Protein backbone atom coordinates (compact mmCIF):
# COMPACT_ATOMS: atom_id res chain seq x y z
CA UNK A 1 0.00 0.00 0.00
CA UNK A 2 1.09 3.63 0.06
CA UNK A 3 2.80 5.23 -2.87
CA UNK A 4 5.60 3.07 -4.22
CA UNK A 5 7.82 3.04 -1.18
CA UNK A 6 10.44 0.34 -1.65
CA UNK A 7 10.59 -1.91 1.40
CA UNK A 8 14.11 -3.14 0.69
CA UNK A 9 15.89 0.19 1.30
CA UNK A 10 15.75 2.49 4.34
CA UNK A 11 12.64 4.66 3.93
CA UNK A 12 14.22 7.80 5.35
CA UNK A 13 16.72 7.73 2.47
CA UNK A 14 13.91 7.37 -0.05
CA UNK A 15 12.13 10.39 1.44
CA UNK A 16 15.34 12.43 1.24
CA UNK A 17 15.78 11.36 -2.41
CA UNK A 18 12.21 12.36 -3.27
CA UNK A 19 12.70 15.81 -1.77
CA UNK A 20 16.00 16.11 -3.67
CA UNK A 21 14.23 15.17 -6.92
CA UNK A 22 11.53 17.75 -6.28
CA UNK A 23 14.16 20.42 -5.71
CA UNK A 24 16.08 19.46 -8.87
CA UNK A 25 12.89 19.50 -10.95
CA UNK A 26 11.88 22.77 -9.28
CA UNK A 27 8.63 21.39 -7.92
CA UNK A 28 10.06 22.63 -4.65
CA UNK A 29 11.70 25.94 -5.62
CA UNK A 30 14.42 27.44 -3.44
CA UNK A 31 13.07 29.32 -0.41
CA UNK A 32 9.74 27.47 -0.68
CA UNK A 33 8.27 25.53 2.24
CA UNK A 34 8.64 21.74 2.37
CA UNK A 35 5.59 19.67 3.48
CA UNK A 36 5.54 18.81 7.18
CA UNK A 37 6.63 15.39 8.41
CA UNK A 38 2.99 14.57 9.23
CA UNK A 39 2.01 15.44 5.66
CA UNK A 40 4.75 13.17 4.31
CA UNK A 41 3.63 10.43 6.71
CA UNK A 42 -0.02 10.61 5.68
CA UNK A 43 0.76 10.80 1.97
CA UNK A 44 3.19 7.89 1.84
CA UNK A 45 1.60 6.03 4.80
CA UNK A 46 4.90 5.92 6.61
CA UNK A 47 5.95 6.59 10.16
CA UNK A 48 6.28 10.34 10.91
CA UNK A 49 9.58 9.72 12.72
CA UNK A 50 10.96 8.08 9.57
CA UNK A 51 9.83 11.07 7.48
CA UNK A 52 11.47 13.40 10.00
CA UNK A 53 14.72 11.45 9.72
CA UNK A 54 14.72 11.94 5.94
CA UNK A 55 14.06 15.65 6.26
CA UNK A 56 16.76 16.02 8.93
CA UNK A 57 19.28 14.29 6.69
CA UNK A 58 18.82 17.17 4.23
CA UNK A 59 18.98 19.74 7.03
CA UNK A 60 22.38 18.29 8.03
CA UNK A 61 23.53 18.71 4.42
CA UNK A 62 22.22 22.29 4.44
CA UNK A 63 19.82 21.55 1.58
CA UNK A 64 16.89 22.43 3.85
CA UNK A 65 16.78 24.81 6.78
CA UNK A 66 14.39 25.29 9.64
CA UNK A 67 12.42 28.46 10.32
CA UNK A 68 11.52 28.23 13.96
CA UNK A 69 7.81 27.78 14.52
CA UNK A 70 7.01 27.73 10.79
CA UNK A 71 8.63 24.68 9.21
CA UNK A 72 11.29 23.54 6.77
CA UNK A 73 12.39 25.50 3.72
CA UNK A 74 14.59 24.85 0.69
CA UNK A 75 17.93 26.66 1.04
CA UNK A 76 19.18 29.00 -1.66
CA UNK A 77 21.78 27.40 -3.91
CA UNK A 78 20.65 23.90 -2.98
CA UNK A 79 19.55 23.04 -6.52
CA UNK A 80 23.03 23.54 -7.99
CA UNK A 81 24.56 21.65 -5.09
CA UNK A 82 22.25 18.67 -5.66
CA UNK A 83 22.81 18.70 -9.43
CA UNK A 84 26.57 18.44 -8.90
CA UNK A 85 26.13 15.54 -6.51
CA UNK A 86 23.78 13.75 -8.90
CA UNK A 87 26.13 14.25 -11.85
CA UNK A 88 28.87 12.40 -10.00
CA UNK A 89 26.45 9.58 -9.18
CA UNK A 90 25.23 9.51 -12.76
CA UNK A 91 28.57 8.21 -14.01
CA UNK A 92 28.75 5.33 -11.53
CA UNK A 93 25.07 4.49 -11.62
CA UNK A 94 24.28 4.72 -15.33
CA UNK A 95 27.37 5.04 -17.48
CA UNK A 96 29.47 2.30 -15.89
CA UNK A 97 26.49 -0.09 -15.73
CA UNK A 98 25.57 0.66 -19.34
CA UNK A 99 29.10 -0.01 -20.60
CA UNK A 100 29.26 -3.32 -18.71
CA UNK A 101 25.95 -4.45 -20.17
CA UNK A 102 27.10 -3.33 -23.63
CA UNK A 103 30.28 -5.40 -23.31
CA UNK A 104 28.19 -8.41 -22.37
CA UNK A 105 26.13 -7.99 -25.55
CA UNK A 106 29.17 -7.31 -27.74
CA UNK A 107 28.15 -3.73 -28.50
CA UNK A 108 31.17 -1.67 -29.57
CA UNK A 109 31.93 1.81 -28.25
CA UNK A 110 30.96 3.28 -31.61
CA UNK A 111 27.62 1.45 -31.73
CA UNK A 112 26.95 2.63 -28.18
CA UNK A 113 27.61 6.26 -29.10
CA UNK A 114 25.24 5.94 -32.04
CA UNK A 115 22.61 4.47 -29.77
CA UNK A 116 22.92 7.39 -27.38
CA UNK A 117 22.48 9.84 -30.28
CA UNK A 118 19.44 7.90 -31.48
CA UNK A 119 17.97 7.86 -27.93
CA UNK A 120 18.49 11.61 -27.67
CA UNK A 121 16.30 12.21 -30.73
CA UNK A 122 13.42 9.97 -29.73
Amino acid at each position, binding site marked *: *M*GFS*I*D*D*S*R*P*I*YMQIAERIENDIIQEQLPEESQVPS*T*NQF*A*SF*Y*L*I*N*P*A*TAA*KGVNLLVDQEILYKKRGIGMFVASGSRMKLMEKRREQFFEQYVVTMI*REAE*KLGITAEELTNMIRRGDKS
Partner: protein
Amino acid sequence: MSTVVKVKGLTKTYGNVNAIQDISFSIESNKIYGLLGRNGAGKTTLMHLITAQQFASSGDIQVFGEHPYENNRVLSQCCFIKESQKYPDNYRINDLLEVSSFFFPNWDRDYAHALIELFKLPLTRRIKKLSRGMLSSIGIVVGLASRAPLTMFDEPYLGLDAVARSLFYEQLIEDYGKYPRTIILSTHLIDEVSQMLEHVMVIDNGKLIIDEDADELRGLAFTVIGPATSVESFIVGRNVIDRKPFGGILSATIMTRLSLRDQQQAATLGLEISSISLQQLIIHMTNGRLNGKVAIDQ
Protein backbone atom coordinates in the same frame (compact mmCIF):
# COMPACT_ATOMS: atom_id res chain seq x y z
CA MET B 1 12.26 9.59 25.60
CA SER B 2 10.76 7.60 28.46
CA THR B 3 10.23 3.87 28.77
CA VAL B 4 6.65 2.65 28.67
CA VAL B 5 7.18 -1.09 29.02
CA LYS B 6 10.19 -2.82 30.52
CA VAL B 7 10.36 -6.59 30.45
CA LYS B 8 13.15 -8.65 32.00
CA GLY B 9 13.70 -12.39 31.78
CA LEU B 10 10.04 -13.01 31.04
CA THR B 11 8.94 -16.63 30.74
CA LYS B 12 5.48 -18.13 30.38
CA THR B 13 4.88 -21.86 30.30
CA TYR B 14 1.62 -23.71 29.84
CA GLY B 15 2.17 -27.21 31.13
CA ASN B 16 5.31 -28.23 29.29
CA VAL B 17 4.88 -25.71 26.46
CA ASN B 18 7.21 -22.71 26.62
CA ALA B 19 5.05 -19.94 25.13
CA ILE B 20 7.52 -17.19 26.08
CA GLN B 21 11.14 -17.99 26.80
CA ASP B 22 13.32 -15.58 28.75
CA ILE B 23 12.43 -12.41 26.84
CA SER B 24 13.84 -8.98 27.74
CA PHE B 25 13.13 -5.67 26.00
CA SER B 26 12.06 -2.07 26.48
CA ILE B 27 9.34 -0.14 24.70
CA GLU B 28 9.87 3.60 24.42
CA SER B 29 7.12 6.18 24.48
CA ASN B 30 5.45 7.56 21.35
CA LYS B 31 6.74 5.06 18.84
CA ILE B 32 4.87 2.62 16.62
CA TYR B 33 6.10 -0.91 17.25
CA GLY B 34 5.46 -3.94 15.10
CA LEU B 35 5.20 -7.21 16.98
CA LEU B 36 5.68 -9.72 14.21
CA GLY B 37 5.97 -13.46 13.97
CA ARG B 38 4.21 -16.55 12.78
CA ASN B 39 0.97 -17.91 14.19
CA GLY B 40 1.59 -19.39 17.62
CA ALA B 41 4.93 -17.65 18.04
CA GLY B 42 3.87 -16.06 21.34
CA LYS B 43 2.73 -12.57 20.27
CA THR B 44 -0.69 -12.71 21.92
CA THR B 45 0.65 -14.28 25.11
CA LEU B 46 3.19 -11.47 25.38
CA MET B 47 0.46 -8.83 25.08
CA HIS B 48 -1.70 -10.62 27.64
CA LEU B 49 1.24 -10.54 30.03
CA ILE B 50 1.89 -6.83 29.47
CA THR B 51 -1.74 -6.00 30.18
CA ALA B 52 -1.87 -8.25 33.26
CA GLN B 53 -4.45 -10.62 31.82
CA GLN B 54 -2.16 -13.57 32.48
CA PHE B 55 0.50 -14.22 35.07
CA ALA B 56 4.10 -14.74 34.07
CA SER B 57 5.80 -17.97 35.10
CA SER B 58 8.91 -15.95 35.91
CA GLY B 59 10.52 -12.63 35.09
CA ASP B 60 9.54 -9.03 35.62
CA ILE B 61 7.19 -6.65 33.78
CA GLN B 62 6.91 -2.94 34.41
CA VAL B 63 4.38 -0.80 32.56
CA PHE B 64 4.62 2.98 33.05
CA GLY B 65 7.16 2.21 35.77
CA GLU B 66 4.84 0.01 37.84
CA HIS B 67 3.63 -3.55 38.06
CA PRO B 68 0.48 -3.81 35.97
CA TYR B 69 -1.40 -6.40 38.08
CA GLU B 70 -4.67 -4.98 39.41
CA ASN B 71 -3.12 -1.55 39.06
CA ASN B 72 -5.64 0.94 37.73
CA ARG B 73 -3.05 3.71 37.31
CA VAL B 74 -1.38 1.50 34.71
CA LEU B 75 -4.34 -0.26 33.15
CA SER B 76 -6.38 2.91 32.57
CA GLN B 77 -3.57 4.05 30.27
CA CYS B 78 -3.64 0.84 28.23
CA CYS B 79 -6.02 -0.13 25.46
CA PHE B 80 -5.71 -3.68 24.18
CA ILE B 81 -7.80 -4.62 21.14
CA LYS B 82 -7.72 -8.38 20.84
CA GLU B 83 -8.07 -10.56 17.83
CA SER B 84 -11.78 -11.52 17.62
CA GLN B 85 -12.54 -9.10 20.45
CA LYS B 86 -15.83 -10.01 22.14
CA TYR B 87 -18.38 -7.45 23.29
CA PRO B 88 -21.67 -8.14 25.07
CA ASP B 89 -24.21 -9.47 22.55
CA ASN B 90 -27.05 -7.20 23.66
CA TYR B 91 -25.10 -3.95 23.41
CA ARG B 92 -25.74 -1.58 20.57
CA ILE B 93 -22.70 0.08 19.03
CA ASN B 94 -23.53 3.39 20.72
CA ASP B 95 -23.72 1.66 24.13
CA LEU B 96 -20.25 0.34 23.52
CA LEU B 97 -18.94 3.81 22.74
CA GLU B 98 -20.59 5.13 25.90
CA VAL B 99 -18.94 2.45 28.05
CA SER B 100 -15.57 3.03 26.39
CA SER B 101 -15.72 6.72 27.36
CA PHE B 102 -15.66 5.60 31.04
CA PHE B 103 -12.76 3.21 30.54
CA PHE B 104 -10.40 5.52 28.71
CA PRO B 105 -9.48 8.92 30.19
CA ASN B 106 -8.38 10.29 26.78
CA TRP B 107 -11.49 9.04 24.93
CA ASP B 108 -12.47 11.36 22.06
CA ARG B 109 -16.21 11.09 21.46
CA ASP B 110 -16.25 13.17 18.27
CA TYR B 111 -13.43 11.20 16.76
CA ALA B 112 -15.16 7.91 17.66
CA HIS B 113 -18.31 9.03 15.85
CA ALA B 114 -16.34 10.25 12.85
CA LEU B 115 -14.71 6.80 12.65
CA ILE B 116 -18.07 5.04 12.98
CA GLU B 117 -19.23 6.95 9.93
CA LEU B 118 -15.99 6.33 8.05
CA PHE B 119 -16.25 2.57 8.61
CA LYS B 120 -19.99 2.71 7.84
CA LEU B 121 -21.02 1.07 11.10
CA PRO B 122 -24.72 1.01 12.11
CA LEU B 123 -24.74 2.92 15.41
CA THR B 124 -27.94 1.39 16.80
CA ARG B 125 -27.51 -2.21 15.70
CA ARG B 126 -26.88 -4.85 18.36
CA ILE B 127 -23.48 -6.52 18.57
CA LYS B 128 -24.90 -10.02 17.90
CA LYS B 129 -26.27 -8.83 14.54
CA LEU B 130 -22.93 -7.57 13.27
CA SER B 131 -20.71 -9.30 10.73
CA ARG B 132 -17.17 -10.38 11.60
CA GLY B 133 -15.73 -7.49 9.61
CA MET B 134 -17.96 -4.99 11.45
CA LEU B 135 -16.83 -6.37 14.81
CA SER B 136 -13.22 -5.92 13.77
CA SER B 137 -13.99 -2.37 12.64
CA ILE B 138 -15.46 -1.60 16.06
CA GLY B 139 -12.25 -2.79 17.69
CA ILE B 140 -10.34 -0.40 15.48
CA VAL B 141 -12.67 2.49 16.31
CA VAL B 142 -12.32 1.86 20.06
CA GLY B 143 -8.54 1.42 19.77
CA LEU B 144 -8.04 4.66 17.87
CA ALA B 145 -10.56 6.84 19.77
CA SER B 146 -9.23 5.64 23.14
CA ARG B 147 -6.04 7.61 22.45
CA ALA B 148 -4.56 5.46 25.20
CA PRO B 149 -0.87 6.19 25.92
CA LEU B 150 -0.24 2.49 25.24
CA THR B 151 -2.52 1.11 22.53
CA MET B 152 -2.15 -2.47 21.34
CA PHE B 153 -3.82 -4.04 18.35
CA ASP B 154 -3.58 -7.82 18.10
CA GLU B 155 -4.36 -8.89 14.51
CA PRO B 156 -7.29 -6.46 14.30
CA TYR B 157 -8.12 -7.55 10.75
CA LEU B 158 -10.30 -10.65 10.98
CA GLY B 159 -12.91 -10.36 8.23
CA LEU B 160 -11.76 -6.90 7.19
CA ASP B 161 -11.52 -6.21 3.48
CA ALA B 162 -8.61 -4.38 1.86
CA VAL B 163 -10.52 -1.08 1.79
CA ALA B 164 -11.22 -1.15 5.53
CA ARG B 165 -7.64 -2.16 6.30
CA SER B 166 -6.32 0.70 4.27
CA LEU B 167 -8.74 3.10 6.05
CA PHE B 168 -7.35 1.83 9.34
CA TYR B 169 -3.74 2.51 8.26
CA GLU B 170 -4.59 6.01 7.05
CA GLN B 171 -6.38 6.87 10.27
CA LEU B 172 -3.65 5.35 12.41
CA ILE B 173 -0.90 7.42 10.81
CA GLU B 174 -2.93 10.62 10.72
CA ASP B 175 -4.16 10.43 14.31
CA TYR B 176 -0.79 9.27 15.61
CA GLY B 177 0.78 12.30 13.89
CA LYS B 178 -1.60 14.58 15.79
CA TYR B 179 -1.59 12.68 19.08
CA PRO B 180 1.67 10.75 19.42
CA ARG B 181 1.37 7.70 21.65
CA THR B 182 2.88 4.25 21.95
CA ILE B 183 1.29 1.78 19.59
CA ILE B 184 1.99 -1.93 19.29
CA LEU B 185 0.68 -3.58 16.15
CA SER B 186 0.78 -7.33 16.26
CA THR B 187 0.33 -8.90 12.87
CA HIS B 188 1.54 -11.38 10.32
CA LEU B 189 0.57 -9.07 7.44
CA ILE B 190 4.10 -7.70 7.49
CA ASP B 191 4.20 -6.12 4.05
CA GLU B 192 1.03 -4.12 4.71
CA VAL B 193 2.24 -2.50 7.91
CA SER B 194 6.04 -2.49 7.70
CA GLN B 195 6.42 1.02 6.32
CA MET B 196 4.41 2.50 9.20
CA LEU B 197 6.60 0.94 11.88
CA GLU B 198 9.42 2.71 13.62
CA HIS B 199 10.61 -0.35 15.49
CA VAL B 200 10.27 -4.06 14.79
CA MET B 201 10.17 -6.94 17.24
CA VAL B 202 10.02 -10.46 15.86
CA ILE B 203 9.05 -13.40 18.01
CA ASP B 204 9.78 -16.92 16.91
CA ASN B 205 8.98 -19.98 19.04
CA GLY B 206 8.62 -17.85 22.15
CA LYS B 207 11.97 -16.12 21.68
CA LEU B 208 12.62 -12.54 20.71
CA ILE B 209 14.87 -12.86 17.65
CA ILE B 210 14.75 -9.28 16.30
CA ASP B 211 14.44 -6.06 18.31
CA GLU B 212 15.57 -3.34 15.92
CA ASP B 213 14.77 -0.01 14.31
CA ALA B 214 12.71 -0.81 11.17
CA ASP B 215 14.85 1.22 8.78
CA GLU B 216 17.98 -0.50 10.11
CA LEU B 217 16.52 -3.82 8.97
CA ARG B 218 15.89 -2.65 5.42
CA GLY B 219 18.84 -3.49 3.24
CA LEU B 220 20.34 -5.72 5.94
CA ALA B 221 20.44 -8.66 3.58
CA PHE B 222 20.68 -9.10 -0.15
CA THR B 223 20.26 -11.79 -2.75
CA VAL B 224 22.85 -12.58 -5.36
CA ILE B 225 21.97 -14.52 -8.49
CA GLY B 226 24.13 -15.91 -11.27
CA PRO B 227 26.05 -18.93 -12.54
CA ALA B 228 26.45 -21.35 -9.62
CA THR B 229 30.27 -21.36 -9.67
CA SER B 230 30.50 -17.55 -9.62
CA VAL B 231 27.94 -17.27 -6.84
CA GLU B 232 29.81 -19.93 -4.85
CA SER B 233 33.03 -17.93 -5.06
CA PHE B 234 31.19 -14.76 -4.06
CA ILE B 235 29.58 -16.24 -0.95
CA VAL B 236 32.68 -17.92 0.51
CA GLY B 237 33.01 -16.96 4.17
CA ARG B 238 29.73 -15.02 4.20
CA ASN B 239 26.64 -15.43 6.33
CA VAL B 240 24.36 -17.27 3.89
CA ILE B 241 20.78 -17.52 5.15
CA ASP B 242 19.15 -19.07 2.11
CA ARG B 243 20.22 -20.78 -1.12
CA LYS B 244 18.17 -21.89 -4.08
CA PRO B 245 19.76 -23.71 -6.99
CA PHE B 246 17.96 -23.56 -10.33
CA GLY B 247 19.60 -25.45 -13.17
CA GLY B 248 23.11 -24.03 -13.43
CA ILE B 249 21.99 -20.89 -11.61
CA LEU B 250 22.30 -20.26 -7.90
CA SER B 251 20.42 -17.70 -5.87
CA ALA B 252 21.90 -17.04 -2.42
CA THR B 253 20.72 -14.67 0.27
CA ILE B 254 23.42 -13.16 2.43
CA MET B 255 22.98 -11.42 5.73
CA THR B 256 25.19 -8.36 5.51
CA ARG B 257 24.99 -4.79 4.35
CA LEU B 258 25.90 -4.39 0.70
CA SER B 259 29.18 -2.49 0.42
CA LEU B 260 30.58 -0.76 -2.64
CA ARG B 261 33.27 -3.47 -2.79
CA ASP B 262 30.58 -6.17 -2.84
CA GLN B 263 28.86 -4.40 -5.69
CA GLN B 264 32.07 -4.16 -7.68
CA GLN B 265 32.99 -7.78 -7.00
CA ALA B 266 29.51 -8.93 -8.06
CA ALA B 267 29.69 -6.84 -11.22
CA THR B 268 33.08 -8.32 -12.15
CA LEU B 269 31.71 -11.83 -11.65
CA GLY B 270 28.63 -10.91 -13.70
CA LEU B 271 26.21 -11.46 -10.82
CA GLU B 272 22.91 -9.77 -10.25
CA ILE B 273 22.27 -8.26 -6.84
CA SER B 274 19.02 -7.22 -5.23
CA SER B 275 18.20 -6.06 -1.72
CA ILE B 276 15.51 -7.97 0.11
CA SER B 277 12.45 -6.46 1.75
CA LEU B 278 11.74 -6.41 5.45
CA GLN B 279 9.05 -9.05 4.94
CA GLN B 280 11.40 -11.38 3.05
CA LEU B 281 14.06 -10.92 5.71
CA ILE B 282 11.62 -11.93 8.44
CA ILE B 283 10.41 -14.92 6.41
CA HIS B 284 14.00 -16.11 6.05
CA MET B 285 14.56 -15.71 9.77
CA THR B 286 11.38 -17.44 10.93
CA ASN B 287 10.90 -20.25 8.42
CA GLY B 288 12.45 -22.73 10.82
CA ARG B 289 15.45 -23.55 8.65
CA LEU B 290 17.82 -21.33 10.59
CA ASN B 291 16.71 -22.31 14.11
CA GLY B 292 17.25 -18.72 15.21
CA LYS B 293 21.00 -19.12 14.77
CA VAL B 294 21.56 -16.03 12.68
CA ALA B 295 22.76 -12.96 14.50
CA ILE B 296 22.25 -9.55 12.98
CA ASP B 297 25.53 -8.00 11.89
CA GLN B 298 25.81 -4.40 12.92
